């Protein structure tokens, strides 16, 4: 059981306020992702929940109990660190068993749980190696193994995939998602990568400068970003943001159009410009278009192979039903 509630939590380092008063509830069994640019306070927030930092004020509840002043060791949470933080002087087996040893479990029970975790994570063959002899992905699994043997109330992940190469990252992402489905334990996952957030989360918490910009399911955020920041942050490639006369036509200060919601044509369309770069991925083609008079660059995503090249004139038409409108404060107009 791991329902985590933050009530009016703040954190400052000296005079610098990192987290202004913040309320947040993460339901039991939920996969919550904290996402935001670097320095937005997402890691600090995670460390507050972990107990590695003190809150300046406010209350943290884990399963209804006030955990604000409880030491990290006693909160019943497990954490996977960015650098994996494996104990280099211990074998994989000892690493995974360490929390159990600290909890004072007997040797047989330790072995049973370590073997079980190793089987789940495909680590059985590596149990007697040292972390230094493992690949990045294997180390990551050991770190996860160390977390799951404790059967914690919630897992905390601090950018766990950022040290892995691209291919491995996709694989581990799937493994973590699968693990969550199987364990049904609360997970809080911090990342700056919106793709990880979109693919894994039940609930995404978008943070900027310690503020929560929006909380919602991935598709909520995609379809109805609450403000310009979320609109620009969620989605890849980024949403095109256009202000000025074109936005005024839609009674808005700024309008946003996702690249995938623009149709292209060689002959006619609402907008036109010159292709600066075209990226051919096979399944999709991205065009970065200059000289539209709307914004510096308009990005368009077309399905399949579409044959525009550098320097070609291109005509574009946005889908009217999915244009996002924002007012002067950058807030969404419903």
């Amino acid at each position, binding site marked *: 059981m791991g329902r985590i509630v933050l009530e009016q939590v703040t954190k400052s380092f000296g005079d610098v306020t990192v987290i202004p008063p913040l309320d947040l509830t993460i339901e039991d069994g939920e996969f919550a992702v904290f996402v935001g640019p670097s320095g937005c306070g997402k890691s600090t927030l995670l460390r507050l929940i*972990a107990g*590695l930092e003190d809150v300046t004020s406010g209350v943290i509840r884990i399963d209804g109990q006030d955990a604000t002043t409880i*030491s*990290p*060791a*006693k909160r019943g*949470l*497990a*954490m996977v*660190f*960015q*650098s994996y*933080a*494996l*104990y*280099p*002087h*211990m074998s994989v087996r000892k690493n995974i068993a*360490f*929390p159990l040893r*600290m*909890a004072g479990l007997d040797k047989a029970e330790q072995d049973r749980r370590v073997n079980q975790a190793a089987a789940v994570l495909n680590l059985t063959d590596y149990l007697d190696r040292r972390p230094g002899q493992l690949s990045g992905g294997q180390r990551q699994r050991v770190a996860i193994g*160390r977390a799951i043997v*404790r059967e914690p109330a919630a897992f905390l992940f601090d950018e766990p995939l950022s040290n892995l190469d691209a291919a491995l990252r996709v694989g581990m992402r799937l493994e973590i998602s699968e693990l969550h489905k199987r364990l049904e334990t609360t997970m809080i996952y911090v990342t700056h990568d919106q793709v990880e957030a979109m693919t894994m989360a039940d609930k995404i918490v978008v943070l900027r400068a310690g503020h929560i910009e929006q909380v919602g399911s991935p598709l909520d955020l995609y379809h109805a970003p609450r403000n310009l920041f979320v609109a620009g942050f969620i989605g890849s490639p980024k949403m095109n943001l256009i202000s000025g006369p074109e936005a005024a036509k839609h009674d808005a200060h700024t309008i946003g159009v996702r690249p995938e919601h623009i149709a292209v044509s060689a002959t006619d369309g609402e907008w036109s410009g010159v292709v600066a770069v075209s990226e051919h991925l096979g399944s999709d083609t991205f065009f970065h278009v200059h000289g539209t008079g709307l914004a510096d660059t308009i990005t368009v995503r077309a399905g399949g192979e579409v044959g525009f090249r550098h320097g070609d004139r291109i005509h574009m038409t946005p889908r009217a039903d999915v244009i996002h409108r924002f007012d002067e404060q950058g807030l969404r107009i419903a």
Partner: protein
Amino acid sequence: MARAVTPQRKLINTAVAWMVGLLIFFPILWTILTSFKTEATAIADPPVWFFFDWTLDNYRVVQERSDYSRFLWNSIIIAGGSTFLGLLIAIPAAWSMAFVPSKRTKDILLWMLSTKMLPAVGVLYPIYLIFIQFGLLDTRIGLTIVLMFINLPIMVWMLYTYFKEIPGEILEAARMDGAGLREEILYVLTPMAIPGIASTVLLNVILAWNEAFWTLNLTAAKAAP
């Protein structure tokens, strides 16, 4: 600089390095050789190198005349003891400074180092008096304590530099895994810092071993190393 070099180059390196090495080592070698000579061979002119009647007489005489082995034992106990005591105090202090740094950490560290700058002669007589007062003069305990104090700043400093290279995340991981402060230091930090601790211990034993000023002035016979 692990680059391939020509064998000639390596040969020259080897020859030069060995020559320099042997030159620096020579006084020790000569001492060892001489210790096996009789008094007459030792002062022979020209000096005799290897072909003399090797004898252990000198060692026997030294042991008989002054119970040399007891002095040796004193040295070992004092150097080892002061190092051990120093570690007990220095490891926690270095942990604090390396992992929970505050604005004053650097000042404290520099201040500690500056106590080393205090010339021993400046405080010789007061220490002498204090030692008489507490009956520590010419005891092994007294000398152990003094040597511990003398080398404590260097120990703290060295351990601090080594500890700083250990990522804090690993200690945090231990904390998340349910380790208390004692377990964190005992099971995680210390084993990881073994190489650093070992070189600290080595340097400290040597420094204690080499410390002559206090040893000469605070001891006479019993505790003399």
